[in-house]
């Protein structure tokens, strides 16, 4: 019987109905219905899964990548600035910083307290630390102090066990090995302000600096470089799991200046504590070999922030240490302007070099008497003698004859009163006044204005750099532009070649007449600047003195015979100017010197310019690729 049942069951492997139990049939039907519902539900889930994973897969994969990849930018090192021989003028130095990793210490406040007993933290530091702590996640380090000295680091390392979570890392800071020597040219950097950050994401990176003056400001884009980036895999709370991809930034470009650091130092030594500026140019291509403005300042103070007291001291100083007088100081050129007037007269065709003017010591025009600097007059002078003696009456007369517009046009072409292409910010243009300019300011142009302009007084204002450019253009007849950039990343600028510069289109014979006049100023008897004679064998230089009144000298005072500008208070004394070029027969270097309130150009400025020119000729930077030995500079001291 058992066997029989087995056999029946085997025939019907799946008995789903039962004759004795009608409920079984119901159960089977309804269970099958349940199975259909289950299969449908699971099928729907699979369909939905397919939709999410395949149809919308790309969308979610993108979201996933954003989820896990955190991209951070790396600050690129700022480009170096070097002189023409490759000596570093602005460099990056390691900046050791103490950081605190808040999650690695159980007692943050206690750790900071113990740290401050080793390295004092002032109120500003503490506030900044507290602020950063609030805003950052616990595994992002907070900077406690930077610019640590070796000593301070040693103290921290020694006490490391009691300072959990404190670590030392290295950033960079900008250093200026030459300090005050080149502060006006190199400029300085400072942390970017909110406005800078808004315009460049690169600047938002910690440690980035922005050039605030000089080449640092002018060439900021090149020096900054390109940010690198590092892609990191982070988890849901932002902790870094691994570094996926690192792309190093491109460091800022290395800028080689035309400056000869050694020469710059010599020029500064010669100026001493006078308030002055001096520019040395290569006449052939306009390279600025030295550019000094005194007094100067320490540019490294800006990197960590200048104190308020220091700032007040600088801005209230009447010697204006923060201003680069070579490009931003404007002075009446005085007699140094006379060659420009002469050139304008010659070019006009109204005057020939041999035309003579009689100088009785004054010129009367329309009831006004214009004095020559010599009360007794120079008698009958031609162009050569007028330049040699710096006769005022001659230039009053020719200025009157040719008119102001011709003078201004020529002066502009020679580089006076026009913007120059120097790579520095905050330069001033100066001014060569014209009747049109005067009328634009609702004033009448008087005939007397033209006459005083003939001797570089009145409204005329020029910068020392313009004077040097003007001298170089006279010396070579080329429209050279002064510039500081010699090479970028070792690639020499095309500006270094003399052929780069077009001709001024001034007749050579006229230029020669001016040069001869300036030669006479220095080297002929009764020239105005005998003190400027060089003592170098076979080399002579040509120059022109200038004294620029900063205050009107009244007729009564002048006629009293007791007038002596050396007795005036410093700020009322005339500026002393001198321009020169050398060697006379094959001009290579041009120098301009302006000593603020230095009194007479012949006495104060001429010897200074001579000393500078002498050093320049001895070093001869334009013909050397390596700096001359120190002994060359030492010769100079014996000469003093």
């Amino acid at each position, binding site marked *: 019987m*058992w*066997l029989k049942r087995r056999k029946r*069951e085997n025939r019907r492997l*799946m*008995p*789903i109905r*039962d004759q*004795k*139990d*009608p*409920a*079984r049939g*119901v*159960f*089977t039907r*309804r*269970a*099958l219905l*349940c*199975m259909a519902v*289950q*299969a449908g*539900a*699971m099928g729907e*889930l*699979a369909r*939905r*899964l*397919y939709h*999410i*994973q*395949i149809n*919308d*897969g790309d*969308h*979610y*994969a993108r*979201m*996933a*990548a954003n*989820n*896990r990849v955190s991209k951070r930018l790396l600050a690129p090192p700022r480009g170096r600035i070097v002189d023409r021989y490759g000596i570093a003028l602005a460099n990056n130095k390691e900046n050791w910083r103490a950081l605190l990793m808040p999650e690695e210490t159980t007692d943050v406040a206690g750790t900071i307290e113990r740290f401050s007993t080793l390295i004092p933290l002032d109120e500003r530091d503490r506030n900044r630390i507290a602020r950063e702590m609030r805003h950052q996640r616990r595994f992002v380090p907070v900077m406690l102090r930077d610019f640590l000295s070796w000593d301070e680091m040693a103290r921290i390392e020694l006490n490391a066990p009691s300072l959990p979570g404190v670590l030392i890392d290295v950033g960079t800071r900008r250093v200026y090995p030459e300090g005050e020597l080149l502060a006006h040219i190199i400029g300085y950097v400072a942390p970017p302000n909110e406005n800078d950050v808004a315009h460049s994401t690169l600047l938002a990176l910690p440690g980035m600096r922005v050039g605030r003056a000089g080449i640092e400001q002018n060439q900021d884009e090149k020096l900054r470089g390109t940010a690198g980036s590092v892609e990191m*895999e*982070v*988890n*849901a*709370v932002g902790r870094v*799991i691994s570094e996926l991809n690192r792309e190093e930034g491109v460091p800022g470009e290395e800028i080689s200046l035309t400056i000869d650091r050694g020469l710059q130092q010599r020029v500064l030594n010669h100026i001493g504590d006078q308030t002055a500026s001096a520019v040395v140019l290569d006449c052939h291509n306009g390279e600025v070999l030295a550019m000094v403005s005194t007094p100067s300042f320490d540019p490294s103070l800006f990197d960590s922030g200048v104190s308020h007291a220091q700032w007040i001291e600088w801005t209230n100083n009447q010697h204006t240490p923060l201003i680069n007088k070579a490009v931003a100081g404007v002075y009446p050129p005085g007699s140094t302007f006379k060659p420009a007037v002469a050139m304008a007269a010659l070019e006009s065709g109204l005057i020939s070099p041999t035309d003579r003017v009689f100088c009785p010591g004054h010129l009367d025009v329309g009831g006004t008497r214009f004095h020559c600097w010599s009360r007794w007059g120079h008698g009958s002078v031609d162009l050569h003698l007028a330049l040699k003696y710096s006769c005022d009456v001659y230039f009053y007369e020719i200025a009157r004859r040719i008119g102001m517009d011709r003078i201004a046009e020529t002066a502009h072409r020679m580089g006076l009163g026009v913007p120059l292409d120097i790579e520095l910010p905050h330069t001033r243009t100066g001014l060569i006044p014209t009747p049109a300019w005067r009328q634009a300011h609702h004033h009448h142009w008087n005939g007397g204005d033209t006459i005083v302009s003939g001797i570089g007084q009145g409204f005329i204002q020029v910068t020392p750099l313009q004077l040097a450019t003007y001298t170089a253009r006279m010396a070579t007849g080329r429209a050279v532009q002064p510039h500081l950039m010699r090479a970028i990343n070792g690639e020499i600028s095309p500006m270094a070649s003399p052929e780069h510069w077009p001709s001024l289109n001034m007749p050579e014979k006229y230029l020669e007449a001016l040069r001869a006049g300036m030669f006479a100023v220095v080297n002929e008897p009764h020239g105005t600047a005998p003190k400027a004679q060089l003592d170098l064998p076979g080399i002579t230089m040509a120059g022109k003195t200038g004294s620029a009144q900063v205050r009107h000298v009244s007729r009564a005072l002048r006629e009293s015979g007791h007038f002596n500008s050396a007795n005036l208070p410093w700020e009322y004394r005339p500026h002393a100017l001198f321009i020169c070029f050398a060697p006379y027969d094959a001009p290579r270097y041009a120098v301009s010197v302006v000593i603020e309130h230095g009194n007479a150009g012949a006495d104060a400025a001429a010897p200074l310019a001579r000393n500078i020119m002498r050093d320049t000729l001895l070093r001869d930077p334009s013909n050397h690729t390596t700096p001359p030995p120190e002994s060359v500079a030492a010769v100079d001291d014996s000469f003093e």
Partner: protein
Amino acid sequence: MTALNNPIRFHKRLLRAEPSFRLMAKLWRISWLYVLLICALAGVGYVTLYSAAGGVPYPFAAPQAARFAVGLVLMVTIAMLPPRLLMRASWGMYALSLVLLAAVLHMGHVGKGAERWLMIGGLQVQPSEFAKIALVAVLATWFSRMDYARMGNPLWLIPPAFMVLVPVGLVLKEPNLGTAVIIGGIGASLFFTAGMRLWQIILLVLPLPSLVQFAYGHLHDYQKARITTFLHPENDPLGAGYNIIQSKIALGSGGMWGQGYLHGSQGQLNFLPEKQTDFIFTMIAEEWGFIGAATVIALLVLLIMGGMIMAIRCRNRFGRLIALGISMNFFFYCLVNLSMVMGAIPVGGVPLPLVSYGGSAMLNVMLGFGLLLSTWVHRDTRLDESNGRTA
């Protein structure tokens, strides 16, 4: 001696007389194919938990494997218990489950605002999981005594209705909406398949919408928040909607072939919340892609359908209802968990059976499978006639 002459009779007597031999026969009747499917699913769980820990067996995979081994022994043991014993034990199980549910209300530990558990002898016990199994058993016992004619009498349906409503009420009070709905669903499916009349069903279903509305008014704020964030997850991407969005991102980034074992970025980088428990399916889908995830779904479907077939095949009413109830329970687990990780229903603490990390859920699931296999082993046993009533 005649018995000895007839080999079949002898065989039968030997079966009755020799308990060890009977045990071997029962062991042989266990559907080892089904056990193999269970082991395969547990294997998926082990492999995924290994990855969830970042490629090491601790702290998830190895303890889970140990629990599974214990569960396997428990399952096989239960599979060989005779149905009469189970019927008798079902009342005790049910009473115990109610006691535990009441106890958990008073001294239970609350995890994440929902699932409550008791600590008994260092073991986490989730009474609501056990209550589902106990309910299936007690309802099957009750309905097994009723033939089709009796089912037509509503009076006979009132006691089992209370058997369902009491645990549902207790679980709602925990409060655990998800589990309460599942318990109600299991109860309903048993009523339905036991042979409830259609007019009775319609009468019950009609007032359901208003009931749901009433229930929503009594939901806790966090439960309402779950429903609203489910409807608009993008409104709160870092708050309550975070789980749903991250889960979908992980699913979507898996694509067709997945990111590779141990290389699922969302899971490995902890973007995925509760990746070793509720959201483990997301890890599978991210690392193995749609291919792997669909394979797991297929495995689940096989287990559900296998249980249902066992129910239909069973010759006794008790076994049929047990098998159907257990299969339904397993199905609801899968449905709620998968819908949750795919953002189809509000998030609630329902694990994926056998795959998610957790001891209590694992033991309950294995207990259920033990009962299921027991109905298969005793599929030809006639119980209904012994009630003294034959239709």
